[in-house]
């Protein structure tokens, strides 16, 4: 079993239930299953080790993907936690409904989207995925079953949203979808030449555009530091409701690890910036290439070769965002490491519902680092220090290495969360960061 980043890769027992009663049998009565316990797993898109449970058991949720009910009048859908957002959209888009929030890949499960309280390009409008969960079913290892709603006073709902699968196994969920007038968006790309211009574009766009995101050239230095392409979009009034087609292209083999080095990265980033700056302007686009550009290539994680890669995603508060992001980029440029896909995005003020939800008001930077061993880890530790000093935090779904202190510093409600944790469930991530 491997995570998406492929650095963490561990053997573990995997159960693959197909029916709700089989799932309940697996979870109930597992309180004494040993320290490693169980963990529910979705489509394996978490990059680090939050979806792995070496020494313990995994419950692969993919076969539990049945829709219980979908009401196309009000856009409420209830389904097993193993349903993928891809399938959800195949069903809902033709009726004019779309998930209120989608992450950068549609190959995640409903349960995974809740357990990581994922965010999307519309965070400034819609907040996190968890804000649109109306109800969920939770199985705990002590044999209990809960039906939780956002107004739950026990705190278990808040602990479960963004709770990394550690408060129980999410069996099913009911979500409120959002109305769309078609499967298309009116998007616009704008080049910016320095970091300040990014913040100016955010200020200008967040009130008038539903979706905003920026690609950053993480190899540009000096006066070009922080240059990139800003994309913003609004849903189009298009009346064509075709869901995304299945991708036909897939990377069949691992690329040689030396292919992505500082030279090729600089060349790629420079060329991409030049190309996109030339082609800037308005475009009418289907939701798939806009929201899920990487889904077009199956198993793109093989780009980084056999040793895999790390993803780094942090958020820093608005008051210090400019300085902190500049400093982060400077460290990355100097290191010569970095990726072809670095993303910068501003989170809005809407509160995340989970005790351990990652998104908070501020600016988030996400990028990949090919696993080049000690120098990659050293770079990320330098970035950690900048994030910590800025009062920011890292995203557990992307992390495979931070320690308990860094985690605790970023998540002040960790103590509250621990009280709701199910002792029969665990993960490699949790054993590393548990207080």
């Amino acid at each position, binding site marked *: 079993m491997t995570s998406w980043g492929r650095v963490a890769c561990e053997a573990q027992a995997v159960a693959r239930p197909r029916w709700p009663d089989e799932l309940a049998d697996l979870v109930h009565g597992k309180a004494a299953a040993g320290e490693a316990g169980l963990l529910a797993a979705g489509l394996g898109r978490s990059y680090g080790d939050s979806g792995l449970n070496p020494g313990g058991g995994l419950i692969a949720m993919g076969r539990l993907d049945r829709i219980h009910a979908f009401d196309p009048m009000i856009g409420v*859908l209830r389904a097993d936690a193993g349903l993928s957002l891809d399938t959800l959209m195949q069903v809902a888009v033709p009726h004019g409904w779309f998930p209120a929030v989608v992450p950068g890949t549609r190959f995640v499960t409903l349960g995974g989207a809740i357990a990581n309280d994922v965010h999307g390009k519309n965070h400034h409008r819609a907040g996190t995925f968890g804000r649109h969960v109306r109800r969920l079913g939770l199985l705990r290892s002590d044999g209990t079953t809960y039906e939780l709603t956002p107004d739950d006073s026990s705190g278990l709902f808040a602990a479960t949203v963004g709770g990394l699968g550690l408060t129980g196994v999410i069996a099913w969920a009911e979500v409120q979808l959002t109305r769309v007038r078609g499967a298309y968006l009116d998007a616009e790309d704008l080049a910016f030449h320095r970091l300040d211009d990014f913040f100016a574009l955010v200020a200008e766009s967040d009130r008038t555009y539903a979706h905003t995101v920026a690609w950053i050239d993480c190899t540009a230095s000096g006066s070009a530091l922080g240059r990139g392409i800003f994309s913003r979009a609004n849903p189009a009034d298009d009346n064509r409701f075709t869901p995304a087609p299945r991708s036909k292209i897939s990377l069949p083999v691992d690329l040689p690890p030396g292919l992505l080095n500082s030279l090729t990265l600089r060349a790629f980033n420079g060329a991409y910036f030049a190309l996109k700056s030339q082609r800037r302007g308005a475009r009418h686009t289907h939701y798939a290439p806009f929201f899920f550009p990487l889904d077009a290539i199956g198993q793109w994680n093989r780009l980084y070769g056999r040793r895999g890669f790390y993803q780094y995603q942090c958020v820093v508060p608005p008051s210090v965002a400019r300085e902190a992001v500049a400093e982060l980029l400077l460290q990355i440029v100097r290191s010569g490491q970095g990726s072809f896909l670095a993303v910068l995005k501003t989170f809005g003020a809407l509160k995340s519902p989970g005790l351990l939800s990652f998104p908070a008001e501020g600016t988030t930077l996400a990028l990949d680092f090919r696993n080049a061993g000690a120098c990659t880890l050293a770079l990320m530790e330098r970035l950690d220090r900048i994030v910590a000093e800025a009062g920011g935090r890292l995203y557990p779904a992307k992390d495979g290495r931070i320690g308990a202190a860094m985690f605790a510093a970023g998540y002040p409600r960790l103590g509250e969360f621990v009280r709701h944790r199910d002792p029969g469930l665990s993960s490699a991530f949790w054993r590393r960061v548990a207080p």
Partner: protein
Amino acid sequence: MKDGLVLILGATSAIAEATARLYAKDGASLALVGRDPSRLAAVAADLRARGAAQVETHEADLAARPAPARDLADWVAGRPAQAILLLYGTLGDQARAETDIDYAREVLAVNFVSAAEWCLVAAGLLEAQGSGALVVVGSVAGDRGRQSNYVYGAAKAGLGVLVQGLAHRLSLRRSGARAVLVKPGFVDTPMTDHLPKGGPLWSKPETVAEAVRAAASSGGPVRYAPGWWRLVMLAIRLAPASMFHRRPL
């Protein structure tokens, strides 16, 4: 016939559910038959959400029904049927079947005797109707006896010959109805979860479902799923016993 009823015998199997989803997406009407009412209900709700015009469920243990002709007539209830799909089976435990003869009889009864009865009745119904397809799931295990699964394989081989005969009969009489045997190779379903998986020989239930769906609308009396199994099994059937018997296949 594109709009008629799709009747699925053994509707809670992984291949059956994947096939039903393909029909649901096109807005078909489905009648599901299986043993467990709560599982049938879960499948039915999902198919409705995925676009099925109508889904009904019938609780029945298909391996133990005394009057299949009456059952089938009840389930179809006079409606035109576009397809009757027989998609159940049990792999069984080969080692146990070698010494526990009651158990071997059970494996043969489920996979061959009961399935053959339903096939005969279904073919009669479709022949009388003058249209529609009977699609039956067989197995590549029925193509050559192997020490690891020959009791199951023998049942599937017998079922294959029966369906072949039905296809011949329906064609010769120009009835307008068809019968097809779909032979999957290794499929990643709960039935095979005890085997080591992965590698190019393994298919998803969705792939077999596509073959079942395609078989119901056109093609010859035997369809391998995926199609390249036809070549693999040709080679396996042609391999001389002197070579074949030295390997623990």
